[in-house]
């Protein structure tokens, strides 16, 4: 039998296989639709929160442009963290060290800026003769420190074949300890106010807060990387099936190290944001950053099992906790309820993710 004959037989027997059967019909009703589409689901939650707080806040201040931009500003740091986390979770990894790495990176950065900015007496008086140099060095140190911790995480995960959950839990403690040792748990004094006036509290065209602009540009870039480049494809391939990625000739270990370094570098950028927004370190804060970033990513439709990830979804996901916190403050309610709400939403998101996986396998 020749190939052509076989094909003929096959065609005659109607055996010609077809890949990509028509999409199953969408069931009627928005509830069914919502269950199918993550973006719709997050969008609905965000709109619901906006409407709710918009209606109940005095003079509807919650939905005024000013307040919405404040929400964006407050979300900008978690956005950076969520972008890196989207790649890691997409590759079926996790990083629990980001919150405390951020503190360590900001401490090292602040100390660099203060040390290079001028003499001890000068900086104590608020004079910084070498401001530009000091800030540049501070940014490099923050990103370098973050990337360094990421490199450590990546090497421990790949070289020692340890689970990233445990590795980053451990390095999280180490980073926190080192930050507290270096500062005796007190914030680094004399961080220049110019960081705040020039960036942290400044607005692009007088409207959009700079940190939000930077976070959105970074997000746009990495959305593109995930969707359009080999790096993004391989990230998801590793998360989908590590074995398949290895067999396809991908250097999985090297790729994972890159992902942890990327996460760390973004932590470094978030650390710079921290200094610029507060004109200070925040060594007792960031306790909930891990939760916020991971929740944002998972709520945004990235699968904890890896292989499916969405930078856009993660961005939307970051808004939910920030909107809750902001709305509760406006309502003069303890903002701490947001953590409870985020925890509940995270469990729901993970549950839906799991259900989706079980249905499709």
């Amino acid at each position, binding site marked *: 039998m020749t190939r052509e004959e076989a094909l003929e037989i096959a065609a005659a027997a109607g055996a010609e296989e077809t890949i990509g059967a028509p999409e199953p019909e969408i069931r009627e009703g928005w509830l069914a639709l919502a269950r199918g589409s993550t973006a719709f689901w997050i969008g609905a939650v965000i709109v619901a929160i906006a409407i709710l707080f918009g209606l109940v806040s005095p003079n509807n201040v919650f939905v005024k442009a000013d307040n919405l931009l404040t929400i964006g500003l407050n979300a900008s740091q978690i956005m950076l963290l969520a972008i890196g986390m989207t790649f890691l979770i997409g590759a079926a990894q996790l990083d629990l060290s980001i919150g405390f790495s951020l503190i360590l990176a900001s401490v090292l950065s602040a100390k660099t800026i203060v040390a290079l900015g001028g003499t001890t007496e000068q900086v104590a008086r608020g004079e910084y003769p070498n401001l530009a140099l000091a800030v540049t060095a501070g940014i490099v140190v923050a990103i370098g420190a973050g990337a360094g911790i990421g490199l450590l995480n990546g090497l421990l995960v790949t070289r020692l074949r340890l689970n990233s959950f445990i590795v980053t839990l451990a390095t999280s403690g180490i980073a926190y300890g080192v930050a507290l040792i270096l500062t005796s748990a007190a914030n680094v004094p004399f961080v220049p106010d110019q960081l705040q006036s020039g960036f942290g509290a400044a607005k692009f065209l007088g409207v959009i807060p700079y940190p939000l602009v930077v976070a959105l540009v970074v997000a746009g870039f990495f959305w593109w990387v995930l969707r*359009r480049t080999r790096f993004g494809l391989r990230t998801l391939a590793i*998360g989908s099936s590590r074995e398949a990625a290895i067999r396809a000739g991908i250097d999985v270990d090297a790729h994972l190290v890159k992902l942890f370094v990327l996460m760390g570098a973004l932590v470094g950028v978030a650390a710079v944001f921290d200094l610029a927004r507060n004109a200070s370190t925040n060594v007792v804060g960031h306790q909930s950053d891990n939760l916020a970033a991971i929740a944002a990513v998972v709520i945004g439709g990235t699968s904890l099992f890896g292989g499916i990830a969405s930078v856009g979804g993660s961005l939307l996901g970051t808004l939910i906790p920030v909107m809750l916190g902001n709305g509760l403050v406006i309502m003069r309610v303890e903002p701490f309820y947001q953590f409870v709400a985020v925890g509940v939403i995270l469990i729901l998101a993970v549950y839906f993710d799991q259900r989706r996986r079980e249905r499709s396998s």
Partner: protein
Amino acid sequence: MTAVPGSEVAIRATGIVKHFGHLEALRGADLVLRPGQILALVGDNGAGKSTLTKIICGALAPDDGELRFWDEPVRVQSTRHAHELGVYTVYQDLALAPDLSVADNLFLGREAIAGGWQGWFGVLERGAMHVETRAALGRLGINVRNLNVPVRNLSGGQRQALAVARAINWATTAVLMDEPTAALGPMQSAIVYETVKAAAARGLAVLVISHDIPRMLSVAHRIAVMRHGRVITELDAGAVKLADVIGLMLGEEVAA
């Protein structure tokens, strides 16, 4: 069927040994793959066929023995290394990434990258990838409507066809196929074997593992029988009888 002649050897495995803990999966296995030739590797479950294949394609490291590619001794470090040597494999478990699309799976590890500044960022040329995927699957009689569907949504047979298409598409020296038609219906497997013959006719060395021995006798040029971690004999597929092969697999002494 006449064997494709040629003293040239694409891949020669000699004395391959592999332990899994106390289990001796391979105890000095020998195998020769020649360009243009289809070699069927048969043997009972657990005989070591998959393990031997994985060693040749770099997915496992042997404990002992030698591999030669075109008569050069090579220590195959990884599947990537094997790919560089032109050796591609259809694994028994297919090794596809279920969340990635059909086209992305076909190109995984060999992505088509755009030129210019986009090349620097590794921007994928999905248009070209789709065209080639459609063609590669078309050669296996698979008509693709939507190359963006995740592989998770394909039937078992479609996945297997994709894995076969991928290996044949990239191989330049040899294709190793571990039960490539186990999930396929009769028509589809007929097409796969015709494609395999066409690939061999182009000069590829082909190794096929299958439990479908009658089929192997008609498709393959040579047939190698494995038992307990060794290749006990290699015969001309045209000259051997089914009963003899089965007897060899099960350990009966057969007059050659």
